[in-house]
């Protein structure tokens, strides 16, 4: 049994759940909040549950519901969803590096669960070489199940929860704060994050909508690569 390793000694289910439970905790209040809003916009719990399964994208679901409430056309809602979710192209591209030997069917299943949150939890583990597609799939589907259940629960019973209770509105923000901290491993990550944040604020002030997320990320990562390469060249020249 030479192939025995620490990773093989614990089950993918256990590893996946212990990595993914914070996402589930974060989704619970956000999902309930979404259910409440969706119910106020006139959706039934069945419709809410269907959306959470068929779309599974938190921020665009919120936007879709507010557009439904405002009487927007399906074309407008779908176009907005597309633009808001374009950022996942970048995330799936980053993940693809670590999934070269994966089966295509499993990749297709994995793609379904690529969210901001599962991405930020799975990527550092793939990066540290102690993660498997099976474990990542457990993270994604635990998150999906929690999202489904909490949005439906919000749709059924959410109206009994007072507005702003227990800081619900801050759950997603706090989650992104911690996920961002996970990403800051070297100075270049910090610098890229600062450039992206400032560019995003500047673009958001100038333009409507959410495209600033993708544009600012592309600008910052490009600037980061240029700066990193220049720093490496200078080091090489001096050394």
């Amino acid at each position, binding site marked *: 049994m030479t192939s025995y390793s620490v990773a093989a000694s614990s089950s993918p289910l256990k590893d996946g759940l212990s990595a993914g439970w914070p996402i589930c905790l974060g989704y619970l209040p956000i999902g309930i909040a979404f259910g409440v809003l969706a119910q106020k916009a006139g959706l039934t719990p069945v419709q809410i549950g269907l959306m959470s399964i068929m779309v599974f994208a938190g921020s665009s679901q919120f936007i879709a519901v507010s557009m439904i409430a405002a009487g927007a056309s399906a074309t407008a809602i779908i176009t907005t969803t597309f633009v808001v979710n374009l950022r996942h192209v970048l995330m799936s591209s980053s993940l693809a590096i670590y999934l070269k030997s994966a089966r295509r069917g499993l990749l297709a299943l994995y793609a379904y669960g690529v969210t901001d949150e599962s991405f930020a939890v799975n990527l550092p583990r793939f990066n540290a070489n102690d993660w498997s597609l099976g474990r990542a799939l457990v993270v994604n589907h635990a998150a999906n199940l929690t999202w489904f259940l909490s949005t439906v629960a919000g749709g059924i019973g959410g109206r009994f929860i007072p507005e702003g209770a227990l800081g619900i509105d801050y759950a997603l*923000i706090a989650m992104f704060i911690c996920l961002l901290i996970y990403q800051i491993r070297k100075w270049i990550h910090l610098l890229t994050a600062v450039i992206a944040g400032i560019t995003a604020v500047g673009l958001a002030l100038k333009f409507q909508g959410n495209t600033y997320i993708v544009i600012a990320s592309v600008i910052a990562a490009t600037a980061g690569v240029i700066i990193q390469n220049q720093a490496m060249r200078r080091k090489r020249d001096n050394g």
Partner: protein
Amino acid sequence: MADYLTLLVGMGLVTYLPRWMPLHYLSRRSLPDWFIQWLGLIPSAILSALLLPVLVLGENPRHIDFLRPELWVALPTFAFAWWTRSLGGTVVVGMLLFWLVGKIDPLWIAWLR
């Protein structure tokens, strides 16, 4: 309900395809070094681009507002996340602080302004 299902199919497709296509096509290709380096910086860029506008921008119309409780609660939440590296803990602490600030907000914001 039929209209609603059509909407969901459309939303589902435009959500799923951007998630799936890079995984399907890029995982079988060897990518140039600079592109891998670029993709390595994308996570910190995206998360920051998602986060910072929420912290410092007020709505309708968007404007800079450094007095937002979102921003002030973020500082101790950042510190907590940095020291503990705990995602669940950070979510709980952030929510709790935001809720507490909501309780005292009218008093001190009025005084600051």
